[in-house]
């Protein structure tokens, strides 16, 4: 396959002051990001000028940390609600895709379908929905739930939710007699009171990597975000998911798999290392351990000696796939809780590359050409500096190698991603 025939897709993953847990403390980080819309407009324009496929906003309907003391040492307790944020960005940009997370546990499909379709119209066909089932007790407490639903139930509700949403987008629930949806979790008469999407339907994104999550993705997703530390993990996930598509009558190219990557890039490798160490030094131990605890879905990790190994953990109703990834890494690299917490806090279990533009491009190229990724969801350590660094250093290197577009091929997100327009 020639470089020109297949190019990687790139997402700019916007989150708080940056993806590094201590990003907000960095001297160059924009600490008031969560209340400054102009900052986000600037980030969107930077990413669009660099020809990124999409902007991606993660979301949770509640605080990130159960412990208010821990929460107060991070910048993640406040920020823009992503639908309103992306709606504002939609009319301040003209080409870049706009993808937001929204939960199937705390929304109703009719309202969600309508909101994302509206974002799609505001942007001229550039919207996408990242489906999550929500795994946190903190969110559940904001929605009258007495407890988190079991993993399998959440995914069954999500499957039905996605079916209703796409049914509305595709005009199947048209309000005529007998066309309504009457299911286990939802009853929806339809139709939507908005015109059809400029790109056929907004793009469907998913990130759940458990077995049931993969099946749901194979059935409904256009794009899959994932976390993979090593080439082998990434390749195994890629092959597994692409292999599930045939069962749903879909082709391998119908899903774009974009693992997260957390690069720290500079003109020289030494500068990049220095930049990374500077960030790591800013992580308080209690914050690192708390973050690790929440990803492992256990509350009392702080009880264990911080310089000792990770204890044996029971299976949880939380994020099963992410938990397995962290545990595997701790055993493989023989890391203490402190080491794992610091390492993990930096990139939240995603793939970290520290180096020059050529080194970062080498790594991305290897996974892309090795059949482990269709593209990457780029997670800058802090904003705006690290997005600027990726845009000005890595993107030109990828373009020079023919691995990334020099200009947008089309106008809609589906066109950028090379996805078929739904009938």
């Amino acid at each position, binding site marked *: 396959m020639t470089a020109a025939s297949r190019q990687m897709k790139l997402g700019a993953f916007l989150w708080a002051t940056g993806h590094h847990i201590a990003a*907000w*403390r*960095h*001297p160059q*980080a924009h*600490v008031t990001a*969560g*209340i400054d*819309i102009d900052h986000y*407009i600037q980030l969107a324009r930077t990413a669009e000028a660099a020809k990124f496929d999409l902007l991606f906003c993660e979301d949770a*309907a*509640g*605080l*990130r940390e159960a412990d*208010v003391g821990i*929460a*107060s*040492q991070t*910048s993640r*307790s*406040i*920020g*823009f*609600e992503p*639908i*309103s*944020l992306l*709606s*504002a960005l*939609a*009319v301040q940009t003209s080409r870049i895709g706009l993808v937001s997370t929204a939960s199937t546990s*705390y*929304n*109703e499909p*009719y*309202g969600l379908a*309508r*909101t994302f*379709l*509206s*974002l799609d*119209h*505001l942007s001229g066909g550039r919207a996408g929905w990242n489906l999550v089932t929500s795994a946190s007790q*903190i969110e559940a*407490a*904001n*929605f*009258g739930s007495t407890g988190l639903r079991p993993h399998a139930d959440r995914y069954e509700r999500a499957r039905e939710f996605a079916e209703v949403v796409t049914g509305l987008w595709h005009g199947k629930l048209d*309000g005529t007699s007998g066309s*309504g949806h009457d299911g286990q*979790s939802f*009853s*929806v*008469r339809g*139709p939507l*009171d*908005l*015109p059809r999407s400029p790109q056929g339907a907004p793009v469907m994104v998913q990130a759940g990597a458990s077995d049931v999550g993969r099946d749901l993705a194979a059935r409904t997703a256009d794009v899959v975000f994932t976390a993979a530390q090593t080439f082998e993990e990434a390749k195994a996930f890629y092959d597994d998911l692409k292999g599930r598509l045939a069962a749903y009558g879909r082709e391998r190219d119908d899903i774009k798999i974009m693992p997260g990557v957390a690069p720290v890039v500079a003109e020289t490798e030494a500068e990049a290392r220095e930049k990374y160490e500077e960030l790591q030094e*800013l992580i*308080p131990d209690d914050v690192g351990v708390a973050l690790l605890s929440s990803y492992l879905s256990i509350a009392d990790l702080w009880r264990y000696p911080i310089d000792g190994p990770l204890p044996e953990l029971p299976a949880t109703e939380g994020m099963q796939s992410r938990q397995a990834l962290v545990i595997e890494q701790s055993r493989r690299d023989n890391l203490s809780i402190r080491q794992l917490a610091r390492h993990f806090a930096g990139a939240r279990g995603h793939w970290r590359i520290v180096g020059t533009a050529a080194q970062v491009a080498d790594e991305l190229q290897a996974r892309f050409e090795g059949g482990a990724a269709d593209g990457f969801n780029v997670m800058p350590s802090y904003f705006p500096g690290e997005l600027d660094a990726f845009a000005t250093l890595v993107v030109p290197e990828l373009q020079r190698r023919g691995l990334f577009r020099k200009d947008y091929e089309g106008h809609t997100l589906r066109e950028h991603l090379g996805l078929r327009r739904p009938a």
Partner: protein
Amino acid sequence: MDNGATMHLAVSLCPGTTDASRGAEPEFDRLARFAQKAEAAGLDMVLLADAAPASGGDAANRQVPFEATTLLAALATVTSRIGLVAMASTVAHQPYNLARRFASLDIISHGRAGWHATMAQAPREAANFSRPGGFSRDDFRRRTEEYIGIVQGLWTGWDADALLFDKGGGRFHDPDRMHLLDHKGEFFSVRGPLNVARSPQDRPVLVLSGLSVSDMDIAARTADVILLEERPAEETKASRDDLKRRVAARGRDPDAVKVLMDVLPVTGGEPAGLADKLEEQFRSTSCDGFNILMPAELSAIDDFVDLVLPELRRRDLFRQGYRGATLRSHLGLGGGGDQ
């Protein structure tokens, strides 16, 4: 200073209207020009309608292809002074999600956002939200009252000085200045706090409409703006007086709630005629102003702004321009913003 001598003016973009002159111009650009025209004229706010009907019949008549809160966010980036108020249904959104959305809109608009809630159930809406039977009138009232209390409580969960941004000390915010809501009620339980900062107006403006007699106390306790449907002057006057009495009985300043009357301008009528009508209604009902139900045609706003407004200003019935930057300040309301 708002001394009651001048009126407040809102314009509503109505769904279901059609615009034959609509050409190739993108729909958003047209709506943006509408809002900009209203802003250039110094109007208090634009009300963005929203509807999610369940039947195919209504859908065909819809004109605006945007859900109102998303449209508000977009319009906020192309305007700088005018208030922007979106209708959002208490059936379509969970209170936590709605509170987040509007707090975020208030930050995006630098303190110009408002939430328009209605006490009237939209016919057939519930059929799209897994509630085929809808709510009884009484349940809907109690549920809406509880809902509004949650949203307004969430909006003030963070103290105005809660964010420290102290990089060196590692203190992003002060945990003692962040408060849980811990609401447990008949219809909802919501722990809080919101994960959006306190917004520039402290609380986005709450506009209430669709009031029946039994809703008056809820409105008197919670609303910043109350919209009354157009009725004979003496009925409007009675409702207005009743509302202001109830507001005072709640220990609020009667001037802290603005009562606006819906007005449907007769197209093709003499500008002086509409100005006369507004002046007459303003004086006879003692209302605080009007909500002009405007077809979303640029010609309609042009006529109002270019012909009717100068007449109102000539009679000293409408202020010359904006004095503050927030919607609360345009409306002469307390709390938040640049009073």
